[in-house]
């Protein structure tokens, strides 16, 4: 795939050059002829490029992508599904850097956040596993939704067909063999992944070394790979090969809502109990190898074929998926009647084989359609493995350039898979789930619950006897019948009801729209709709229509092609004295000295300038609970931290916030800049019980176990204009007038646990303010010789009384001043002082909230805060990376004076990268 990407960027590059050359107005007069000739030469890719595969003449580029995955609601048949379906948001940043003519470095970073309802198992519909949630309304008692219920009993006829009863009245409805997924909601979780690749290119060969990690709360994976390419036959043929290894560990905190009802006997050696949680550990290794061939078939077509093999060993279960097993005691058949029998419905953690060998074969044919200048891409993939999963995938793309930099790509995909040979929606086992143990004489065995190793029996008069037949004083013991669990050997070796291992087909279609802007900036938006249907399976229905679902994915990409800009920009720059092969000298910019934590700190110099940037902020709170400026005891928080009516029970142990922000800045005139800044946030928090807290309140969400909480997704979006007020040599003074649009959700909820709603998440865990906010700022910056300095006043005024959840965040005022010194032409250091005043939250949640601690009460927000910032700024004045600026700043809290009771702050890191042209 990486090879594929490289080819993509390479050809894009050639095309971009073609576009550059076709616009003579951007070429300087002096070097125009030379550049035009160079460009013309580059357009003929055969002269310098491998037509088939990437050569190293690719460009430096940076891309940023946002994607949203939204699943539709699953069908529960007999009860309404009130659970939010799975939704996932992904941000993805990627870069390609040419370190030398032959050495290329690329990286990817992505962060996923997801939440929503997911199937934990499949059960007969008659088992009523989605138990109705009843609510009183003005119209009487209604079924508002469902909550999972995996341990129950079911009526069966003598052929083991389920018989459905009304869940409320118990009245027999009749035989019903349908299955249904049992859904459980999941609180939000995040995944972070990063990888890199370092490649070296020869004229007719290439080698790449790569590696990466993927980190989740419950799943970590690290991997490395090596791949290569050999070109033959005047680069009409390319042979690709690669191999990789990955090592993964699972540490899954078993769902504490499900744990009491889950049968875990097969994994007792892998389950650790810690802090009230049960953690299932597993590890897995994968070895991969692939070989591929790309062949040019003619002037307008090519073929690409690959074969890949993966060997996996270890723990491949999904630790959150259970198999519903219906235990039927054989004795219940022995009465010669035809009345219904009772099955004992239990959920067992699924068991998959520990080895998997997969082979995938793919072929791709690409044809240029000359009359429309379009390209038709046809893909077919077949894969099979020793789990019995055969898959077929057909994909067709039509890439249609539309002129003026636009292109449109409709796409259709069909996929079909056979079921794994151990997939079953649910299982029957003709044995009792547990039964009373008997001795050789057929007498029931009894044990003392406090000392289960000593066994007793009873005589005909129900007297308790020990092993030697002596009478025992029962009043001194706590005896109960000894139970024998089911015989696991009578179950299949492997079983799973994960619908992803079932037989089904899917059809999806979508469209991608690309727009190539001037100066190497490319925008892309895509949409795809996907529907899974059992009946779409090749060769007949998969019989799993109960698991049908659909989803859509929307994504947006911005790509900045650095070299292309320089090629053009070098031509357009009046100061292009150093222009050499498109590498312009970048004008020194006073904005390069501003600390990373400052927003709206500098303006673009002249009309038409554009800046794109990325801003990252991480802040952490941890440690003591403060009241005002002093540390308070747990008991004080219990008594005073919440409300008169309710004592506090929990406080945060830590609270982390990460914000990723994209910055796009444009100067329509020399005195006005406009900025657009979408943001993406994620929060993590854990809490602890306060010592001296009161007993749990029935019906209120009670936090148990060691798992923390996380939320994340799109944050608020800023739109700001900066207006130049005064400029003199060494002095700049500008005004910022901004607005923040409430694109961040303020309705994030914790999941329902133990049949109790989790309620809305704490104020600080919501993704935005939920209100339209006004953001004014006033900034002064100065510069003399190696010294720089500046000051800024910044405010946030909430323009609405409340957001959709019933509250509004406090207004904010910040004053800051800094000084900096240029250590080297490209590097400067800054020191900054910051005062922040923040008002308390007004209003309160208008929906249910657990009220477990100070973080849930509006009066415990805001305060007065003093920080010192230490920063480093690097800006690249010349060469191919001219125009890039990178800044870091650490903000160290000096003093907190909080309103009410709040967790102390530990510090914040700000990092920015921006590139102006």
């Amino acid at each position, binding site marked *: 795939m*990486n090879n*594929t*990407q490289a080819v*993509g960027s390479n*050809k894009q590059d050639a*095309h971009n050059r073609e576009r550059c050359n076709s616009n003579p107005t951007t070429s300087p007069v002096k070097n125009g002829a030379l550049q035009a000739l160079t460009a013309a030469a580059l*357009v*003929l890719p*055969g002269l310098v490029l491998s*037509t088939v595969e990437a050569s190293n003449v690719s460009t430096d580029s940076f*891309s940023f*992508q946002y*994607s949203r995955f939204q699943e539709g609601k699953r069908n529960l048949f007999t009860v309404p599904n009130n659970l939010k379906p799975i939704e996932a948001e992904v941000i*993805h940043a990627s870069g390609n850097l040419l370190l030398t003519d032959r050495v290329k470095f690329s990286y990817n970073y992505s962060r*996923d956040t*997801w939440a929503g309802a*997911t199937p934990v198992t499949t059960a007969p519909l008659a088992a009523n596993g989605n138990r109705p949630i009843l609510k009183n309304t003005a119209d009487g008692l209604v079924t508002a939704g469902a909550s999972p219920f995996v341990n129950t009993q079911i009526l069966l006829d003598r052929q083991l067909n389920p018989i459905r009863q009304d869940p409320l009245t118990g009245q027999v409805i009749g035989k019903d063999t349908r299955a249904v997924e049992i859904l459980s909601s999941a609180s939000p*979780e995040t995944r972070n*992944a990063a*990888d890199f690749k370092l490649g070296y290119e020869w004229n007719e060969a290439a080698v790449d070394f790569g590696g*990466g*990690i993927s980190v989740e709360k419950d799943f970590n994976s*690290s*991997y490395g790979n090596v*791949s290569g390419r050999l070109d*033959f036959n*005047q680069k009409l043929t390319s042979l690709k090969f*690669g*191999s*990789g290894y*990955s090592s993964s560990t699972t540490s899954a905190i078993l769902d504490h809502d499900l744990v009491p009802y889950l049968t875990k006997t097969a994994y007792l050696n892998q389950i650790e109990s810690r802090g009230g949680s049960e953690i299932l550990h597993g590890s897995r290794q994968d070895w991969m190898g*692939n070989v*591929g*061939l790309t062949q*040019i*078939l003619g*002037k307008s077509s090519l*073929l690409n074929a690959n074969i*890949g093999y*993966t060997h996996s060993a270890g723990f491949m279960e999904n630790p*959150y998926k259970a198999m519903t097993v219906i235990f039927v005691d054989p004795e219940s058949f022995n009465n010669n009647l035809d009345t219904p029998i009772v099955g004992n419905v239990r959920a067992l953690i699924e068991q998959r084989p520990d080895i998997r060998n997969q082979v*995938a*074969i793919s*072929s*791709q044919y*690409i044809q*240029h359609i000359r009359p429309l*200048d379009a*390209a038709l891409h046809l893909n077919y*993939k077949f*894969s099979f493995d020793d789990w019995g999963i055969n*898959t077929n995938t057909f994909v067709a*793309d039509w890439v249609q350039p539309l002129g003026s930099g636009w292109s449109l790509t409709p796409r259709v995909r069909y996929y079909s*898979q056979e079921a*794994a040979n151990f997939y079953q929606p649910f299982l029957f086992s003709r044995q009792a789930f547990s039964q009373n143990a008997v001795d050789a004489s057929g007498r029931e065995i009894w044990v003392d619950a406090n000392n289960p190793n000593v066994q007793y029996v009873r005589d005909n008069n129900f007297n308790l006897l020990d092993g030697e037949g002596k009478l025992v004083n029962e009043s001194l013991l706590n005896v109960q019948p000894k139970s024998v669990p089911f015989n696991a050997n009578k179950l299949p070796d492997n079983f799973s009801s994960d619908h*992803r291992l079932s037989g089904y087909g899917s059809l999806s279609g979508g469209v991608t729209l*690309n727009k190539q802007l001037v100066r190497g900036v490319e925008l*892309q938006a895509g949409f795809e709709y996907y529907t899974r249907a059992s009946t779409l399976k090749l060769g007949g229905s998969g019989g799993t229509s109960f698991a049908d679902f659909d989803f859509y994915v929307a*994504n947006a990409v911005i*790509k900045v092609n650095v070299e292309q800009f320089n090629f053009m920009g070098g031509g357009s720059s009046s100061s292009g004295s150093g222009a050499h092969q498109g590498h312009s000298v970048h004008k020194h910019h006073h904005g390069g000295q501003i600390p990373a934590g400052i927003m709206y700190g500098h303006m673009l110099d002249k009309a038409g300038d554009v800046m794109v940037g990325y801003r990252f902020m991480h802040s952490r709170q941890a440690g003591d609970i403060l009241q005002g400026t002093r540390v308070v005891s747990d008991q004080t928080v219990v008594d005073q931290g919440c409300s008169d009516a309710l004592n506090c029970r929990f406080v945060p142990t830590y609270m982390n916030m990460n914000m990723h922000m994209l910055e796009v800045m444009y100067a329509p005139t020399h005195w006005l800049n406009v900025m657009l800044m979408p943001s993406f946030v994620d929060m993590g928090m854990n809490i602890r019980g306060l010592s001296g807290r009161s007993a749990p309140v029935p019906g209120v969400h009670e936090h148990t176990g060691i798992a923390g909480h996380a939320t994340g997704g799109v944050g608020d979006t800023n739109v700001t204009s900066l207006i130049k007020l005064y400029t003199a040599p060494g002095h700049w003074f500008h005004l910022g007038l901004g607005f923040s649009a409430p694109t961040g959700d303020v309705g994030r909820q914790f999941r329902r646990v133990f049949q109790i709603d989790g309620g809305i998440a704490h104020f600080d865990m919501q993704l935005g303010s939920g209100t339209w906010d006004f953001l004014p700022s006033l900034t002064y910056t100065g510069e003399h010789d190696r010294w720089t300095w500046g000051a800024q006043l910044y405010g946030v005024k909430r323009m609405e009384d409340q957001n959709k959840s019933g509250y509004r965040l406090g207004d904010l005022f910040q004053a800051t001043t800094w000084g900096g010194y240029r250590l080297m032409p490209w590097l400067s250091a800054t020191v900054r002082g910051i005062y922040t005043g923040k008002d308390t939250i007004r209003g309160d949640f208008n929906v249910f909230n657990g009220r477990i601690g100070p973080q849930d009460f509006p009066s415990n927000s805001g305060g007065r805060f003093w920080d010192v910032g230490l920063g480093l700024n690097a800006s690249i004045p010349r060469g191919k990376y001219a125009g890039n600026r990178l800044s870091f700043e650490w903000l160290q809290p000096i003093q907190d004076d909080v309103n009410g009771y709040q967790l102390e702050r530990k510090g914040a890191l700000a990092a920015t990268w921006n590139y102006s042209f």
Partner: protein
Amino acid sequence: MKIQRSILTILILAVSVGLSGCISLAPWERGNLAKPQMALDPHPMQSVIRAHNYGSRESGASVNAAGGGGGCGCF
């Protein structure tokens, strides 16, 4: 079925290798092939997301799993 498909793919490979001997393209005849719409993957960023979404919902193997470490896909 499995074997038939494997044979078909091998045949395609063999034919393409065979064809390669018959083709000769001068550099200036490669213009169409160099167009962005002819790239093996015209939308590489989108493909990463797609592979992740399909991978979390389907069980098919990848021809190039060497990228590795797709995460749990536990949702």
